[in-house]
C-alpha cells in the first residue's frame, strides 16, 4: 500500500484492520468449516428420506419373504391374525375416505378460492383467508373427536342404522380439513393470473362468473390441479381422524355407512402394541407403510410434475 493518508488524523483504520487481520486466522477457518457443516445438515434431510425408505424397505422385505407380493397386492382379505395379508381392503378403505373427502373439499375449496380471488374485496379476503386456514392448523385428533361425538350422532338421526364407526363422517371431516389446502393454494394460483386478462374479458362484456370460469380458472389450471393433488395426498395420509372415527374393520366395501380400516389406521393399530416385534404382523405394518409411502410419493411427484409441466406463462 503505497498511499499515505496524510489527511487522515486520529485512528488509522486501515492500519488497524491490517493488524487485526494477522490475528484472525479463526475467521478463515470458520469460512472453511461452515459450508461443510451446513452441507452435512442438508445431507441430513436426504438421509432422513433414505432412512424412511430404508427402514420401510428392510422390514417390508422381511415381510415379503414370508408373504408373497402377489398375495399382498391381490388377495382381497385382510385378516392378519389368520395369516391372510391381502391389502386390498385397506386400500379400498383409504380410497373410500379419500373419495368422500374430495367430494366434500373439491367443490367447496374451489368455490371458496373463486370467491376469494374473484368476488371478495381485499378486506374480506384478508379476513376470510386466514380464518379458513385456521382449519388446517387444528390438530387432527380434534377433528376425530368432533367426527365421533358430533358428526356421527348427527348423521344417525338421518341414517338410523349408521354404526358409530363409519367411513362417512370420517371422510367428511377429512374433507373439511383439506378445504383450506385447496382453497388457499388455488386462490394463490388464481391470484397470480394477471389482472390484464380479467380486464380483457370484462371489457368484452363478460360477467365476473364468466371471467372466473372461462379465463381465470383455465389460466390457473395447473396450480389448481396441483393443490388438489396435494390435498388428495394429505387425505390418503390422514391418520387420527380415521383411527378415531372410521373404525378398525378391514371391509372391502365402498359403502360409506360402513366401518372400514385405512392403511394408516392399521399402522396405528399394529404399532400401538397389537402386534409383537418380530412377528409377521409386525413386519406387515411396514409393508402397509411402504404402500402408503409410495401412494403419497406418487401424488407429490404428480403435483410437482403438473406444476413444472403446465406452469402458466402469461
Amino acid at each position: 500500500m503505497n498511499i499515505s493518508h496524510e489527511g487522515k488524523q486520529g485512528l488509522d483504520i486501515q492500519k488497524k484492520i491490517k493488524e487485526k487481520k494477522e490475528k484472525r486466522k479463526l475467521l478463515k477457518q470458520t469460512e472453511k468449516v461452515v459450508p461443510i457443516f451446513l452441507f452435512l445438515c442438508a445431507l441430513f434431510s436426504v438421509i432422513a428420506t433414505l432412512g424412511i425408505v430404508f427402514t420401510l424397505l428392510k422390514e417390508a422385505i422381511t415381510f415379503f419373504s414370508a408373504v408373497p407380493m402377489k398375495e399382498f397386492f391381490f388377495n382381497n382379505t385382510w385378516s392378519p391374525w389368520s395369516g391372510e395379508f391381502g391389502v386390498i381392503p385397506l386400500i379400498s378403505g383409504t380410497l373410500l375416505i379419500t373419495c368422500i373427502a374430495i367430494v366434500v373439499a373439491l367443490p367447496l375449496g374451489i368455490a371458496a378460492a373463486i370467491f376469494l380471488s374473484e368476488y371478495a374485496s381485499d378486506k374480506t379476503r384478508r379476513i376470510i383467508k386466514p380464518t379458513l386456514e385456521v382449519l388446517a392448523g387444528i390438530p387432527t385428533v380434534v377433528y376425530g373427536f368432533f367426527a365421533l361425538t358430533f358428526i356421527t350422532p348427527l348423521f344417525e338421526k338421518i341414517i338410523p342404522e349408521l354404526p358409530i364407526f363409519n367411513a362417512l363422517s370420517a371422510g367428511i371431516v377429512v374433507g373439511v380439513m383439506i378445504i383450506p389446502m385447496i382453497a388457499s393454494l388455488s386462490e394463490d394460483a388464481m391470484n397470480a393470473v394477471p389482472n390484464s386478462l380479467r380486464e380483457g374479458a370484462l371489457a368484452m362484456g363478460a360477467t365476473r362468473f364468466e371471467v372466473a370460469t372461462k379465463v381465470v380458472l383455465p389460466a390457473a389450471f395447473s396450480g389448481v390441479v396441483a393443490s388438489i393433488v396435494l390435498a388428495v395426498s394429505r387425505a390418503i395420509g390422514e391418520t387420527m381422524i380415521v383411527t378415531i372415527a372410521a373404525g378398525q374393520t378391514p371391509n372391502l366395501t365402498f359403502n360409506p355407512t360402513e366401518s372400514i380400516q385405512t392403511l394408516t389406521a392399521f399402522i396405528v393399530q399394529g404399532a400401538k402394541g397389537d402386534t409383537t416385534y418380530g412377528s409377521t404382523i409386525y413386519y406387515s405394518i411396514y409393508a402397509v407403510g411402504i404402500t402408503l409411502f409410495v401412494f403419497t410419493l406418487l401424488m407429490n411427484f404428480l403435483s410437482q410434475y403438473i406444476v413444472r409441466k403446465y406452469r402458466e406463462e402469461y
Partner: protein
Amino acid sequence: MLQKQQEKWQKRVTKRVWLNKVFHSLFFAATTVGLIFLALLLYRILTQGISYLDLDFLQGFPAPYPEEAGILAGLVGSLYIITIVAIFAIVIGVSTALYLEEYAKKNRFTRFIQSNIQNLAGVPSIVFGLLGLTLFVYILHLGYSLLAGGLTMSLLVLPIIVVASQESIRAVPNFLKEASYGMGATKWQTIVRVVLPAALPGIITGSILALSRAIGETAPLLVVGAAAAIYTLPDSLLGSYTAMPIQIYSWISRPQEEWPLVAAAGIIVLLVVLLLMNTIAVLIRNKFKKRY
C-alpha cells in the same frame, strides 16, 4: 344483422347477469361452509369442555376418574417435546436452508436435495412414526422415551422449517448482501450479520408454525409409544412421557359419558397453547415487518 345480433345479446345479458349473481351467492355460501364448521367445532368443544376446565385440571395427572383427570403431564410432555424439536430441527433446518440458498451450486445434487425436502414434507406423519419406531426405539435403543418421541417429531417438522427458512432467506434483498460484501466482509460474516438477522422473522415464524405442528401431531407419538397413564413428569430424556394429544386421544377412547367432556377440556388447553404460539408468530411477523 349487426343490429339484430346486438338485440339478441342484450336479452341474454339479463340471464347472464342473473347467473353471475346466483354463483356469487353460491361461492360465498361455499366459503362459509368451512367457517361455519370451524365455528361449530369451537363452540361444541368450548361448551363441552368448559365444565372440566379448572386449575385442578391444569395441575392434574390422567386419573381413572373423570373428576380428577388433568392435563399437566401432557402439557409438560408436549413442552419437552417441542424443546427437543426446537433444538434439533431448527438448527438442522436453518442450516440446510442456508446451505441451499447461500452455498449450494445450482447443480443436480442440489436439486435432488431440494426435491427430497419437498417430498419429505408430503410424507404422512404416521410413516415418520414408523421411522422413529425402527430407528430410535429399536436400532438406537432409546426405547419408548421422550428423546425418541422428540427426535421423531423433529424429523417430521424438519421440511417445514427448511422451506420457511429458505423462503425468508431468499427474500433478503441482494442489495443488503452487496453492501456487506462491498465492505470486505466474508461470506459467513455477511450471513451472520446481515442475512440471518433480516431473515429471522420469517425463520421464527416458520419455526413456530412447525412447533405447533409438533404439538398437535398424535399419530407418530402413538407409534413411538407415548404412554397414556402416567402420573409423574418425565425425569430424564430417556424417561417415559405423555403428550397432550395422546392424553386427549386416550380420553376420547373411553366410552363412558363423562370422558368426552374431559377430552374437550384437554382440547381447549391444546387449542389455547396453539393459539398462543400462533399469536406469538403473528406478533413477531408484525413487529419485524420488513422495512426495506
